[in-house]
C-alpha cells in the first residue's frame, strides 16, 4: 500500500499555543480518511499543514514520499475544498471550476470542456454562467468540489465541507462524496467535528484532541473499542465507568466504556445488576432510560416499543460480557 501523506513528529506552535503536537500518522493512498475532533483540537491545522498554508514548527510531512516542508501550496499535488467554499466572487461557475487549468495554461475550449464534465459529475450541469452569489449553499459546495478536482489532485482535502448545510442535504452529500471518492480512487482527507459523519463515511478515523491523535483506527474499532475516555465520550454516547464501578460490574480495574445500546432489561431475578429507573427520554425509534445503580448511574438505549415500569421501580439490567470495554487511563 502506498502512503499518500505521512506526518513524522509533525509539530505546529502558534507562540505558546501548541496546535499540533509532534504527531505521527500515515494515510494510505485511495482511502477516505477522517480527522475527527472538537473545535480547537488542531484538526484543521493538520489539514493546513498538508496543503502548505501552515508551516511546521518542527518535524516533517511527506506527500507521496516527497518531503514537502519547503514546497509552497501551489506546487503540492493536493487540492482543498474550503470550509466556506472560498469561491471567487467575480468569476462565474465555469471560470471558478476551470481556474486551476487556466493557471496551467490550458487553452480555453479544453478547460471549459473539462469544467463542464466535472460539473456534470457533481450534478450541476447548466449552471455554468451563474455567479457564486446566485447559488445555494449546497450548489456552492458542489462547485467548490468540482473546482478542487479539476487539477486531478492525488489527495483531496476537505475542511468541514458539509458544516454549513442543513441535515437532509448533508446526508445526501455524504453519500455522494463517498460514492465519488470510490469511483475516482482519490485519497480524501476529511476534517469534521461530526462523529456520525466521520463514522459513516470513512475507511479510517483519527480522533484528534488538544493537538494529539488519540486514536487512529477503523470506525468500527473506534466505536467498539475506544482507547480513552475522551474517545468513548466524543464518539457516540457511552457510559463511562470508574474503575470501582467497572469492578462491581464484573469488568477490569480500569476506566471502562459501556455503550447504552448494549444495556438491556433482563427478566426478573436475572441480569448483572439491579438499577432504579430514574428517567425516560423518547427519541423516536428508541428510548433512552437512566438507571441509578450502586456507585453511579448508567443509561440504556432500548426499543421504543418496550414497556417500562414506573420511575422508582427496580429493574434488572444485562449486557454481553465483551460490551464492557476497558480503556487506557489518559
Amino acid at each position, binding site marked *: 500500500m502506498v502512503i499518500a501523506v505521512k506526518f513524522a513528529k509533525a509539530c505546529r506552535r502558534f507562540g505558546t499555543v501548541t496546535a499540533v503536537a509532534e504527531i505521527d500518522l500515515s494515510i494510505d493512498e485511495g482511502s477516505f480518511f477522517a480527522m475527527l475532533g472538537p473545535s480547537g483540537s488542531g484538526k484543521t491545522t493538520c489539514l493546513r499543514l498538508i496543503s502548505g498554508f501552515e508551516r511546521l514548527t518542527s518535524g516533517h510531512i511527506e506527500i507521496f514520499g516527497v518531503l514537502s516542508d519547503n514546497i509552497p501550496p*501551489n506546487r503540492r499535488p493536493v487540492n482543498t475544498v474550503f470550509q466556506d467554499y472560498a469561491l*471567487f466572487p467575480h468569476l462565474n461557475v465555469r471560470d471558478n471550476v476551470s*481556474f486551476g487549468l487556466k493557471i496551467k495554461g490550458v487553452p480555453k475550449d479544453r478547460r471549459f470542456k473539462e469544467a463542464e464534465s466535472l460539473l456534470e459529475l457533481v450534478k450541476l450541469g447548466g449552471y455554468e454562467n451563474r455567479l457564486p452569489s446566485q447559488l445555494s449553499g449546497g450548489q456552492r459546495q458542489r462547485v467548490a468540489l468540482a473546482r478542487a478536482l479539476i487539477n486531478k489532485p492525488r489527495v483531496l482535502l476537505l475542511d468541514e465541507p458539509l458544516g454549513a448545510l442543513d441535515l437532509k442535504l448533508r446526508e445526501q452529500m455524504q453519500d455522494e462524496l463517498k460514492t465519488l471518492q470510490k469511483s475516482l480512487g482519490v485519497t480524501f482527507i476529511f476534517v469534521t467535528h461530526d462523529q456520525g459523519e466521520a463514522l459513516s463515511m470513512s475507511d479510517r478515523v483519527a480522533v484528534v484532541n488538544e493537538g494529539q491523535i488519540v486514536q487512529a483506527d477503523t470506525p468500527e474499532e473506534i466505536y467498539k473499542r475506544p482507547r480513552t475516555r475522551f474517545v468513548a465520550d466524543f464518539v457516540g454516547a457511552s457510559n463511562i465507568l470508574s474503575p470501582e464501578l467497572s469492578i462491581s460490574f464484573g469488568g477490569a480495574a480500569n476506566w471502562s466504556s459501556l455503550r447504552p445500546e448494549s444495556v438491556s432489561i433482563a427478566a426478573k431475578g436475572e441480569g448483572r445488576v439491579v438499577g432504579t429507573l430514574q428517567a425516560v427520554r423518547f427519541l423516536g425509534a428508541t428510548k433512552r432510560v437512566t438507571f441509578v445503580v450502586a456507585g453511579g448511574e448508567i443509561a440504556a438505549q432500548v426499543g421504543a416499543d418496550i414497556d417500562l415500569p414506573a420511575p422508582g421501580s427496580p429493574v434488572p439490567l444485562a449486557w454481553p460480557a465483551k460490551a464492557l470495554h476497558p480503556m487506557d487511563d489518559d
Partner: protein
Amino acid sequence: MELAAASGKPGLLGRLSDVFWRKPGLFVFLLLLPPLLWLGVIYIGSLFALLLQSFFSIDEFSGLVRYEFTLKTYGELLAPANYDVILRTILMACAVSIAAAIIAFPIAYYAARYARGRIKALFFLAVMLPLWSSYLVKIYAWKLILAKEGIVNWLVEGLGLTLILQAVLSLPVIGGNSLSVSYIGTFLVLLYVWLPFMILPVQAALERVPANLLEASSDLGAAPNQTLRLVVFPLALPGIVAGSIFTFSLTLGDYIVPQIIGSSRRFIGQAVYAHQGTAGNIPLAAAFAVVPILVMAVYLWLAKRQGAFDAL
C-alpha cells in the same frame, strides 16, 4: 405607577415619536429634507445654472454676455489654445491617477493584509496627516523643495547625479528651468496632494477580499503573481476606480498647484479662473467647467462597462 405612566398621556416628544411611528414616511421625509435641500437646490441648482451659462455667448465688441442660446462658446473650446488646455489637463489627470494607483497599491495591500492594531492606527494617521495641514502651506513648501536652491537639487548634487537631473529637465514639454517650474514638478505635487484619496478606497477594497480566496488560488496552483493578477486585482478594481475618480476629478479641477508650481501654460482650472475673473467671459468659463463633468461621466461609463463595479 410606572406602568400607568407608560400607558398614560405622553409628553410632547413622546407624542412626536408616536406620530413618526404611525407615519414612517413622514420621518424619512424630515430626515432627508436638509440634505435634499442642500444637494438638490444649492448644488444641482448651481450646476444647472452653470450649464445654462455655457450656452450663452459673449459679445466681442461690448464684452457683455448675450443671453441667447448658442453653441458658439463650445466651438471656442476647440480653438487650438483652448483645446491644448483641455488635453494638457486630461493627460495630467491620467498620469496622476495611474501613478497614484501604482504607489497606493502596495501601501494599501500592506495595510489591509498585514497591519494590525496599533500599526494599523498609525497607518491611517500617516495617510491622513498631510490632510490636516493647509493646502497652500503644503504647496509653497513643495515649491521650496523643488526650487533650484531647494533640497532636491542639493541632494542630487550631493549624490553627483546633477547630469541626470539636467537631462530630465531638458526634455521637451515636460522639462523646464528647474523642477518647480516644470510639468514634472506639477505632476509630483498633484500626486502628493491627492495620494491619500487613492490609498484609502484601495485599502478598503482589499480589506474586503477574504484571505481564503488567496489560499484557494494558491491551492489551485497559482503562483503569487497569478493570484495577484487573477484574484486580488479584479477584486480591488472597484477601489482603484473609486480612488481614481477622486484623483482624476480633483486634478481636473485644481488651479492652485499649476499656478504655483509648473510652467506658465494653463490648466482647465486656471482657464476657468481667468475667464470668469479678469476677462469677464462667464460663458467660456462655464463651458470650460463643463469639460471635467463630461470627462468624468465618460470615465464612469467606461469603468462600468469594463465591469469595475460588478464586485461591489
